[in-house]
């Protein structure tokens, strides 16, 4: 069924009885060509692009809970391409281009909205670091504009320019940055993958990975054994546990990152604003809630919930930046489980086990990566070769020290990214 405004009208007149399932609910077959473990954004987009770009449709996505139930359904929905290190630069640039055509591609309104992202800076040295970033974005062909204090004031007049502990010197404006509706991304990919014949299997937890003679041959699940020639592990948040089923030990620590949403308010914040000094960023959703977050809680966690010290720090940062939000009330808080890699950049690579592929280590950059991650993972699984924009996302870079991408410069201290 194709979605359109006309269809919405027609179904409305018919009592909305004609809408069909967004995706099938198949029972797992006992054999597939390719299995993707993980029905989150990355897993679903991988399955979709396997089918779309490579014609590989004998694919099952195995999800232990419900589709899109992990970090893709629990984030602050920011989409941007403002990285500066080679490796990240081209990858996120590619991702943003995919975002820009995603509605038409998927026939699903993921509400990608390029509201513009502004990274504030508060000192000369921060300005220079953002200039370096902006120049990297420009060199990559992406958009970046350096704003001075008055430039920021024109876009964001409600910030506290006069009393702040860290006065605003200016900002780096990324007009193509913005937000999307997170659940819709998962659902859009799921529906589109399903339409191309991919089996999406929910409530199916992988409990083992079968390896024979150094080759992956299938998986064990709570719904039985399934054979496959190729298996992709796309379970950021649980990567260490699933990889351990194949005897792999990963350079990953799991941490909690909290986020918050307020009650619905009439539009007041148009852009996405990032306040690095306070580890604070904010945007307003189409429903009216202010969506914002901060830094990691900085302890290993799988609990998908955090604690008050970071909650309060985030709120204090909000208060120093834009005191008007003091009257807004936080409606809900949540925590995502972050796959933290040593250099803060992801891994899309083969493993020492033939036919077994790995997509992990998204730190807190996973949501905006969903399209390109799937695109590149599908390329890798279909061709055996890394895609050119993800060629640096190698698993062995930590052992060799070659091509590390430490955007924050905090080093291989897992928890510091």
């Amino acid at each position, binding site marked *: 069924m194709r979605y359109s405004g006309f269809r919405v009208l027609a179904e409305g007149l018919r009592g909305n009885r004609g809408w069909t399932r967004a995706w099938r609910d198949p029972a797992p077959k006992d054999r597939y060509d390719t299995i993707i473990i993980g029905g989150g954004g990355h897993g679903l987009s991988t399955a979709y692009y396997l089918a779309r770009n490579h014609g590989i449709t004998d694919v099952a996505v195995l999800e232990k809970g419900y589709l899109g139930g992990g970090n893709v359904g629990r984030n602050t929905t920011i989409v941007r391409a403002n990285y500066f290190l080679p490796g990240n630069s081209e990858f996120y640039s590619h991702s943003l281009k995919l975002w820009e055509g995603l509605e038409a591609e998927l026939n699903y309104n993921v509400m990608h909205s390029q509201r513009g992202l502004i990274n504030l800076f508060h000192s000369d040295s921060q300005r220079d670091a953002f200039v370096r970033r902006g120049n990297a974005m420009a060199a990559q062909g992406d958009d970046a504009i350096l704003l001075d204090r008055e430039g920021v004031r024109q876009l964001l007049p409600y910030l506290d320019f006069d009393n702040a502990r860290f006065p605003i010197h200016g900002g780096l404006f990324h007009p193509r940055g913005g937000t999307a509706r997170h659940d819709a991304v998962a659902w859009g990919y799921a529906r589109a993958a399903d339409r191309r014949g991919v089996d999406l299997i929910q409530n199916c937890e992988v409990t083992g990975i079968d390896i024979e003679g150094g080759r992956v041959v299938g998986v064990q699940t709570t719904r039985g054994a399934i054979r496959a020639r190729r298996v992709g592990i796309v379970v950021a948040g*649980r990567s*260490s*546990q699933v990889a351990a089923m194949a005897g792999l*030990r*990963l*350079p*990953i*620590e*799991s941490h909690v990152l909290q986020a918050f949403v307020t009650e619905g308010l009439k539009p007041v914040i148009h852009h996405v604003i990032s306040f690095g000094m306070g580890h604070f960023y904010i945007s307003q959703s189409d429903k009216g809630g202010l969506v914002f977050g901060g830094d990691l809680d*900085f*302890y*290993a*966690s*799988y*609990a998908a919930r955090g*604690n008050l*010290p970071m909650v309060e720090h985030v709120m204090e940062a909000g208060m120093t930046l834009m005191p008007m939000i003091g009257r807004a009330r936080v409606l809900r808080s949540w925590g995502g489980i972050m796959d933290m890699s*040593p250099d803060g950049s992801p891994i899309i690579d083969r493993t020492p086990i033939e036919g077994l592929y790995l997509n992990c280590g998204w730190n807190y950059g996973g949501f905006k990566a969903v399209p390109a991650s799937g695109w590149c993972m599908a390329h890798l699984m279909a061709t055996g070769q890394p895609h050119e924009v993800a060629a640096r996302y190698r698993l062995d870079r*930590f*052992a060799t020290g070659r091509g590390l991408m430490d955007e924050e410069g905090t080093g*291989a*201290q*897992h*928890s510091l990214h």
Partner: protein
Amino acid sequence: MRVTCPWCGERDRREFTVQGDETALRRPHRDAPPEDWHAYIHLRDNPAGRLREMWYHDPCGTWIVVERDTVTHAVHGTTPAREAAR
């Protein structure tokens, strides 16, 4: 979250800096093979369950090994790192 500093008693999480799992205690010898150093610096068991983790109590400057559950966040015990390192 509240953690007991062996010297100062039970304190709120905001008094501490956390620095990852206790692998840090087992630093390889200078001339150990590169794989050992790679494992020491980068690879982690990252358990969903009990974990021994390095915490630093900022006010008193003590490194503590905290045994904690990464799923429930329950704290099961703390040892001064100086003792754990022996």
